[in-house]
């Protein structure tokens, strides 16, 4: 034996194994364990799916009540045919896991504040935020409520859970989804709680902006004073075209919320301003989270049958939030987009009707200021006495570090979001508790369960009446010719501006005075104009007896655009509806451009500025891929906004809420001597809108020239839309997509946000449906089905959706594979 070489060689070998077996740090990121990751029999190579992969399979599962078949079409969309409803949900869970397991794990980790567990201490701020918001608390309450009161939903979610776990159980470690290998962790069993956490995340995504906006509104009001605030952040929208047409007469409200007598001084701070202390949130849902939906009646269509369209605008991600499927059992036959993480179809149609959703935008989240007796937070002042809090312990595991324990004081209102333990430098010790309808247990999943089975208008009403959070505009079209839209959710009966700002929490005088009864929520069925629609605008005009919430939550222009088009359309076909969903007309610019031109002093402009203005005026008002005029318009408008109110907001140490574009536009249309236009920093002169707009154009020109140099003046190049992988890794994303659209556009595609599922359903005898989402059915970046639909989506094309009986589907030439699920081997 040659001892020294042996020892040396053994040490080198061991050291190399060790090095290749740990996650090395490359820059700020952690590399995968290289040896493992590159090993062709263990690592990522195993996820490189054959391009002609065969998805035929035979699966035995004892949990099933009977045998069933799944046929998979050429787009990898599964069509489940089961004899038992629970079996269908078992298989839905199995298929979600088979194709989307990693995203299911990752998204529920975000929701439950468990990212640090896999990614380390960097993720602590975001984990702590979600814990303190009460995400886990809310999911647990929903779970307990469903377990106690709703055996049908419990059985459904249990069957779904069992399906996910049946897949996980048979999964060979070498076949783990790619991202588990990349990030070096393993999946854990699915639980019903994870399904409720996923749904909590949707509530956060669609109503949680208030968690930031309420703080920003409070800060802005304190900074500007109430009167100026109320001018710049007015709730009045001149050009509103509400979901329920203007002039609709509403019944007398059953709740008349009363504004507390001291609200002007203690809450709105109209009288004297209090000490300026601010707080803000580390993260907020996208402002553009919203959607379009509409249904046209037979009176307006070529076929005489209704057509329904729905396109939810959400973050554009790979793997997609959506997964297409058909579920057919003896009780129902449904097709549409499902959420990996939840049973049933979320937006879709069945053999009797179709439905779609848009976000209601109503304010269901408030902060209350808490006075604790001392730093133990064991007691707080409430209704004239010290009241005991309860403490909720949330343990956050941190990779390569110690656990962090979050102790949350629970109050009358809800969890304490901000206190001495969770602050930032500017918060000055403010204690804020959260009251949020998402934290009241819900049985929302039942709404979709029932919609999947609904046969008619009454079933639809019954199904959505159970919906609490996030509030949605549910649109309906039936084969029998009904169309309807209803805004449904658990909505707070508010007095004007209640909850726009942080509210005093020392007694009950500012508490919610009731939840609006479901039958008083805005709704309309078969209106004379022959269509119903929504695009996140305010649902009603001011004659609706309840306060809807601050106007900044309600974008104006998409709704105007949708209604403008639908009003003048007749003999409509499904193809017309596809064209409308992908329409790029800029209704905001149509009004704002002439308004700008009124104020631009062309003679005072530089030659470059003139050229940019000409580019803008020659533009055809469509946000199309190659248009340069929209880029000029956008930069000029933003710059003018900055010139007009930048001076009012510039002194603040933290970002304040920017006033909405319509506030400036409405003023420009009305009034040339608007006091806000004056730059308050120049004491010796008074600027008017003309000076400010012209100044804005000059400033914009600098930016536009820089863009021109980079060759980024064309709209799509400027906008650079991308569908981002959930880890934000560019290599796994689709970058720089040549697609038009934008904010205020029906085709609401912005940088990383837009129509996440487009669907058009023609309610003919044999349903004629079209749809797609910007992703692919497989969540595996190594699969040819990973991003299959992205190009079509960019081009504004649609797939004809295969919605057929088992016999017909078996024979369809588009059917490619067959998965058999068997109860037992016999």
């Amino acid at each position, binding site marked *: 034996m040659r001892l020294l070489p042996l020892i040396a060689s053994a040490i080198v070998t061991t050291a190399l194994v060790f090095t290749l077996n740990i996650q090395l740090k490359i820059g700020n990121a952690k590399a995968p364990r290289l040896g493992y990751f590159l090993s062709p029999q263990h690592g990522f190579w195993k996820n490189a799916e054959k391009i002609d992969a065969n998805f035929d399979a035979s699966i035995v599962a004892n949990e099933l009540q009977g045998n069933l078949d799944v046929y998979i079409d050429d787009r990898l969309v599964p069509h489940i045919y089961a004899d038992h409803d629970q079996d269908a949900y078992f298989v839905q869970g199995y298929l979600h896991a088979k194709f989307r397991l990693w995203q299911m794990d990752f998204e529920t980790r975000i929701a439950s504040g468990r990212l640090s567990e896999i990614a380390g201490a960097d993720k602590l701020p975001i984990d702590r935020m979600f814990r303190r918001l009460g995400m886990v608390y809310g999911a647990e309450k929903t779970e307990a409520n469903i377990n106690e009161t709703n055996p049908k939903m419990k059985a459904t979610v249990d069957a779904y859970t069992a399906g996910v776990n049946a897949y996980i159980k048979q999964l060979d470690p070498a076949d783990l989804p790619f991202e588990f290998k990349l990030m070096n962790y393993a999946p854990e069993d699915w639980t019903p709680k994870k399904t409720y956490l996923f749904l909590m995340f949707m509530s956060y995504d669609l109503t949680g902006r208030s968690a930031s906006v309420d703080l920003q509104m409070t800060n802005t009001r304190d900074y500007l004073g109430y009167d100026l605030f109320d001018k710049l952040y007015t709730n009045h929208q001149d050009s509103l075209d509400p979901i329920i047409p203007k002039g609709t007469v509403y019944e007398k409200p059953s709740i008349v919320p009363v504004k507390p007598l001291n609200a002007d001084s203690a809450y709105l701070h109209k009288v004297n301003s209090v000490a300026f202390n601010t707080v803000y949130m580390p993260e907020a849902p996208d402002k553009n989270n919203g959607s379009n939906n509409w249904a046209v009646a037979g009176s307006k269509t070529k076929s005489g049958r209704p057509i329904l369209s729905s396109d939810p605008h959400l973050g554009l991600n790979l793997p997609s939030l959506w997964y297409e499927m058909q579920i057919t059992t003896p009780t129902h036959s449904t097709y549409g987009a499902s959420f990996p993480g939840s049973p049933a179809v979320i937006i879709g149609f069945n053999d009797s009707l179709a439905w779609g959703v848009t976000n209601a935008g109503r304010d269901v989240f408030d902060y209350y200021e808490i006075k604790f007796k001392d730093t133990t937070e064991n007691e707080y002042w409430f209704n004239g006495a010290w009241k005991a809090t309860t403490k909720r312990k949330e343990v956050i595991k941190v990779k390569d570090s110690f656990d962090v324990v979050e102790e949350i004081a629970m109050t009358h209102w809800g969890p304490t979001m901000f206190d001495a333990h969770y602050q930032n430098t500017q918060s000055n010790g403010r204690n804020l508790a959260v009251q949020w309808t998402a934290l009241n247990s819900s049985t929302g999943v039942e709404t979709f369960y029932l919609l999947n089975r609904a046969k008619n208008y009454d079933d639809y009403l019954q199904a959505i009446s159970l919906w609490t959070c996030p509030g949605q505009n549910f649109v309906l079209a039936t084969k029998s010719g009904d169309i309807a839209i209803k805004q449904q959710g658990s909505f707070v009966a508010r007095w004007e501006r209640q909850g726009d700002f942080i509210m005093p929490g020392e007694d009950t005088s500012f508490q919610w005075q009731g939840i609006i009864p479901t039958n008083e929520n805005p709704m309309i069925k078969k209106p004379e104009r022959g269509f119903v629609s929504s695009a996140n605008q305010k649902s009603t005009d001011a004659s609706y007896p309840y306060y809807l919430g601050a106007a900044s939550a309600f974008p104006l222009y998409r709704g105007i655009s949708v209604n403008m088009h639908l009003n003048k359309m007749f003999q409509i076909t499904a193809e017309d509806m596809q064209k409308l969903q992908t329409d790029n007309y800029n209704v905001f610019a149509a009004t704002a451009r002439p308004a700008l031109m009124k104020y631009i002093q062309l003679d005072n402009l530089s030659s470059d500025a003139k050229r940019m203005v000409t580019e803008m005026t020659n533009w055809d008002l469509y946000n199309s891929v190659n248009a340069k005029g929209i880029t000029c318009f956008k930069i000029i408008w933003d710059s003018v906004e900055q010139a007009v109110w930048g001076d009012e907001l510039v002194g603040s140490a933290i970002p304040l809420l920017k006033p909405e574009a319509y506030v400036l536009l409405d003023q420009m249309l009305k009034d040339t001597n608007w006091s806000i236009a004056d730059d308050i920093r120049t004491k010796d002169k008074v600027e008017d809108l003309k000076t400010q707009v012209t100044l804005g154009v000059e400033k914009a020109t600098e930016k536009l020239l820089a863009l021109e140099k980079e060759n980024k003046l064309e709209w799509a190049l400027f906008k650079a839309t991308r569908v981002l992988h959930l880890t934000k890794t560019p*290599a796994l994303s689709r970058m720089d997509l040549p697609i038009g659209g934008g904010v205020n556009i029906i085709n609401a595609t912005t940088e990383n946000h837009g129509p996440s599922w487009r669907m058009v359903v023609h309610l003919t005898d044999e349903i004629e449906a079209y749809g797609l989402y910007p992703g692919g059915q497989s969540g595996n970046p190594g699969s040819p089905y990973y991003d299959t639909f992205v190009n079509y989506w960019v081009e504004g094309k649609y797939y004809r959706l295969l919605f057929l009986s088992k016999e017909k589907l078996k024979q369809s030439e588009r059917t490619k594979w067959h998965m058999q699920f068997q109860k037992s081997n016999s």
Partner: protein
Amino acid sequence: MKYIVSIFLSGLLTYAVGIYGDLPWWSFVITNIIISIALPIKPAQAFTAGALGVGSLWAGLAFGTDMANNHILSTKVAKILPMGGSYLLLIFATASIGALLGGLASLTGSFVRAHKS
């Protein structure tokens, strides 16, 4: 002859222990050590035999997988790692790591029975 057999056995056993997803990815280090103890050859030869055995197996598996996948995943991974999106470079890196470790393992084993010259 022992040299050729060593190469072949190294590749074969690496593949065999790799089938079991529950075993660690570096299990071939053990099998390579055993091979070069059982079939003593000169250390330099042992190194190349182990390197060729594991390296060519990994190269072959990666290459075959990549062809059948039309480079979909390798191109993405070669941007993450980063290798400028080159699947060839990624296959080369994969084979190199296998070869280096395989070689070192066999070398280590070879010293167990090697005599001082």
